[in-house]
């Protein structure tokens, strides 16, 4: 069918364009402007050229934080995506169990980030927290304030608790949209449970999984509030992710130039990774 071209439609897009300009484009332009200058406040700026970029690129602090962030995002995706699919596959499709499960799944998503951080900060404490106290009672030497491995485990567990529901809900939406005829055909062919999953459910979930992977990657790569509330980036710098490091640099040290340069590098990495994920998943979808 021939496409209908109507340029009046641009007027409908205009509000979104204005909104994006004010919320994203203008701030991004300002960050770029800051990244090549130095300031001591009072709206006075001094040209610095590419110095801040060179400084960031040669700083081990940046590469360490980037490495921690990549490892964190990889672990988060490796746990949350399979776990989300598994839970969605086992959720009821009919009856009273459906609304009950959906509400239960939606609950963690309704809790603000800083509250999640506070919940887990208390939950993991050895003196008053249920998790910390229980682990100590069974003889596990757990202390997220002192031990980097424990801090990592707590932050990962917290993120899994908070965000697996999103993957579950997306996958569930994909699963319930599959017509019964597919399952009936699979049954007639004598397909195994694995074959049904591999050739019917997984392909039908591909689009929602793409959204889930993208959202979870971007969110986990930009994570700030929860680990900041729980560990403050410690012990040492063991849970200092890029965003925490960035805030320390920009607000703690008032190094706005280097922080702006770091923001741009951070933004480019997120853009690249998201594009790679999107391209790989959509191109494999087109081939299917």
């Amino acid at each position, binding site marked *: 069918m021939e496409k209908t071209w109507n340029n009046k439609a641009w007027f409908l897009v205009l509000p979104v364009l204005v909104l994006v300009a004010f919320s994203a484009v203008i701030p991004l332009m300002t960050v770029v402007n800051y990244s090549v200058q130095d300031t001591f406040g009072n709206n006075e700026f001094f040209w610095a050229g590419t110095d801040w970029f060179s400084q960031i*690129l040669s700083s081990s602090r940046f590469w360490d934080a980037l490495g921690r962030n990549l490892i964190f995002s990889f672990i988060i995706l490796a746990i949350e995506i399979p776990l989300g699919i598994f839970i969605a596959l086992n959720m009821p499709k009919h009856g009273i169990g459906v609304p009950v499960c959906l509400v239960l799944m939606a609950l963690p998503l309704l809790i603000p980030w800083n509250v999640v951080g506070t919940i887990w900060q208390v939950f993991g404490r050895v003196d008053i927290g249920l998790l910390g106290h229980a682990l100590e009672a069974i003889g596990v030497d757990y202390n997220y304030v002192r031990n980097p491995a424990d801090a990592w485990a707590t932050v990962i567990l917290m993120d899994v608790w908070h965000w697996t529901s999103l993957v579950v809900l997306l996958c569930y939406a994909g699963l319930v949209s599959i017509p019964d005829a597919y399952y009936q055909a699979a049954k007639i062919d004598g397909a195994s449970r694995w074959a049904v999953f591999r050739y019917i459910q997984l392909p039908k979930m591909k689009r929602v999984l793409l959204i889930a992977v993208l959202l979870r990657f971007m969110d986990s790569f930009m994570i700030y509030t929860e680990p900041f509330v729980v560990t403050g980036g410690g012990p040492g710098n063991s849970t200092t992710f890029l965003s925490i490091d960035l805030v320390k640099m920009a607000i703690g040290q008032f190094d706005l130039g280097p922080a702006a340069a770091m923001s741009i590098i951070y933004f*480019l990495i997120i853009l690249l990774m998201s594009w790679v994920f999107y391209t790989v998943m959509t191109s494999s979808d087109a081939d299917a």
Partner: protein
Amino acid sequence: MNFTWMAWTAPTALFFLTILLLLVGMSVWEYLVPGGSPRKGILQFETTRGDRLFISLLGSAFINLAWLGLVGPNLWWALALAVVYAVGVFRFV
């Protein structure tokens, strides 16, 4: 309107003006040759000319960053490399 809080400089203004001109140029191109000229190049997935511009700009940013980190602060050669890369992307991707 006072935009001093945005801390504009001539080089960054030139940079954004170039991006704006590229977008205007792409719009004119799209008006003249509608459809985005989709094709499968060496990356083996379909790209439109908008995708190719995005790949060119993103790649150019990383070429400049890599040059800055590995070679030094003189970015003219990196810019030349980025232009060659962009031409390559538009030709082969």
